[in-house]
């Protein structure tokens, strides 16, 4: 397994060659991937919003945004501009400190979670050993922000929405963690890189989805619930709760909630891809193709092609899941709160436990296929 392109090493080496000290060169490198990832997440968010509007329009036989930019692609950017320039209202009897802090607490963990999303062998901010566990623990901060904004709005709908969001979030975190745990058990590591590595080599046949079909379904349902996507969008159920915890928000603070929900959707798609669909791996392994064509692994063109194809594959699979989420949104009706909790506690949790048990058993009995 070659390590692909080492951008960091090349960058630092070229800076040292320019006469900078190694420490300074490393310091100069550090903000670059972070900035790149934030920009990438923002662009991904804009694409996601545009896709949501276009696909929703398609499912309802409408046209959707059309006039701003080609095919309306600039519409989400315009929406963002509009929200920035809108008046930032804090209701008179609201608790202004908590009211402001709430959306920030909701959006921060989502963006920090991009720390662990890999787009290629070396194409991630840092290979944290904790990997997916870091994502799970960060996403557990979100309900605090939701409760905070629900409470601070001084509005009964907002409070109910915040409570529902928190209840939903902590109930579905458990099946989510159990599904992730089964994958982690198979790859013997929490690191996202190792999880993808373990699936590589056999193309589409090596992906975890074949070994963890049940875990995949559990993860997908729980991820939809964590993102508050439609079959589970009770916290902002507009027929019952106006807009849930977002009721009193406007302008940039509302935009923060909006951004957080879509970035979270893209993040969930990315993690589904990393955990179950082989991350940056293409359905046909590139190494195998290269060896067929007699191209050496150290070939620069091959490395660039592998890296860009990896990014493309990751994004393609991710947006496939975003597409599925949008399609599900217009297909399924919203569940009731008791049905939601029933599904989480009485269906997903036992199935997740059984799945974990079976995975452990298979790992012991068939170590070659389930990671010994």
């Amino acid at each position, binding site marked *: 397994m070659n390590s692909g392109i080492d951008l960091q090493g090349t960058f630092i080496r070229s800076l040292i060659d320019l006469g900078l000290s190694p420490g300074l060169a490393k310091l100069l490198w550090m903000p670059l991937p972070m900035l790149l990832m934030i920009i990438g997440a923002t662009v991904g968010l804009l694409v996601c919003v545009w896709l949501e509007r276009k696909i929703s329009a398609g499912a309802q036989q409408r046209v959707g945004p059309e006039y701003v930019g080609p095919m309306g692609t600039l519409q989400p950017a315009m929406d963002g501009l509009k929200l920035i320039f809108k008046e930032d209202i804090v209701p008179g009897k609201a608790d202004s400190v908590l009211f402001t802090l709430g959306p920030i607490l909701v959006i921060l963990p989502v963006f920090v979670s991009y720390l662990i999303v890999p787009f290629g062998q070396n194409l991630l901010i840092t290979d944290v050993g904790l990997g997916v566990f870091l994502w*799970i623990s960060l996403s557990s901060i979100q309900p605090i922000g939701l*409760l905070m904004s629900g409470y601070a709005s001084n509005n009964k709908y907002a409070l109910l929405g915040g*409570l529902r969001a928190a209840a939903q979030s902590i109930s579905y975190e*458990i099946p989510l963690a159990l599904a992730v745990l089964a994958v982690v058990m198979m790859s013997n590591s929490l690191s996202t890189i190792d999880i993808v590595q373990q699936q590589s080599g056999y193309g589409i046949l090596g992906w975890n989805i074949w070994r963890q079909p049940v875990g995949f379904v559990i993860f997908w349902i729980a991820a939809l619930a964590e993102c508050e996507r439609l079959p589970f969008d009770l916290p902002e159920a507009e027929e019952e709760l106006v807009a849930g915890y977002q009721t009193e928000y406007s302008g940039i603070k509302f935009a923060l909630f909006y951004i957080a929900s879509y970035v979270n959707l893209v993040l969930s798609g990315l993690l589904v891809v990393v955990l179950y669909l082989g991350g940056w791996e293409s359905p046909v392994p590139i190494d195998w193709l290269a060896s067929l064509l007699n191209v050496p692994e150290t070939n620069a063109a091959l490395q660039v092609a592998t890296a860009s194809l990896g990014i493309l594959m990751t994004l393609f699979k991710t947006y496939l899941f975003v597409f599925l989420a949008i399609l599900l949104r217009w297909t399924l009706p919203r569940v009731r709160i008791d049905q939601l909790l029933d599904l989480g*506690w009485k269906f997903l949790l036992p199935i997740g436990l059984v799945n974990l048990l079976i995975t452990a058993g298979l790992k012991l009995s068939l170590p070659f296929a389930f990671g010994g």
Partner: protein
Amino acid sequence: MNLAEGVQIVSFIILAAAVVAAALGVVLIPSVVYAAFLLGGVFIGIAGLYLLLNASFVAAAQILIYVGAVNVLILFAIMLVNKREDFRPVKFAWARRGVTAAVCGGLFLLLGTTIITTPWAFSTATPVGDDAVYLIGEHFFSDFLLPFELASVLLLMALIGAIVLARRDFLPESALTASTENLKLPERPRELVAVAKADQPSN
């Protein structure tokens, strides 16, 4: 002192100050909700301190369990009970506060002197870092097996207890009639309350 150490010291000072300030806020601020949110801040700050000590797994677990579960449950409990009650001013409240302050100050002094007088052995072993997960797992299933299992039994008991409390129809009739008055919430018991209690242990 190189750059990394400087960053470490500065972040330690910031984190320690934030933790102390938030902890004081939890105790001194009269609003319960603010206290609960500040408690979350304390937990996050302590997770940051763990990170500085190269214990990233413990830090993440701290955030997941204390911030994501315990603190959310505290907030849940606060927000679900919408009882408004003005407490009667207690006579000699200052005396109670004085005694509390004296006890807490004494405890603080005791701990402080213990920490200062103990000859701490500085470990020279390199921090294990990300391998801590394996080490923790090994300890859980060898020398710390009993405490680990005891903790899980305790949590299971809490789980079952919460279910029994939430399923009112399983309580005997006499228990219901005897003490309904002071047990009753202002609202009728709902599923949401049961869930809030029931998911505590399994986190």
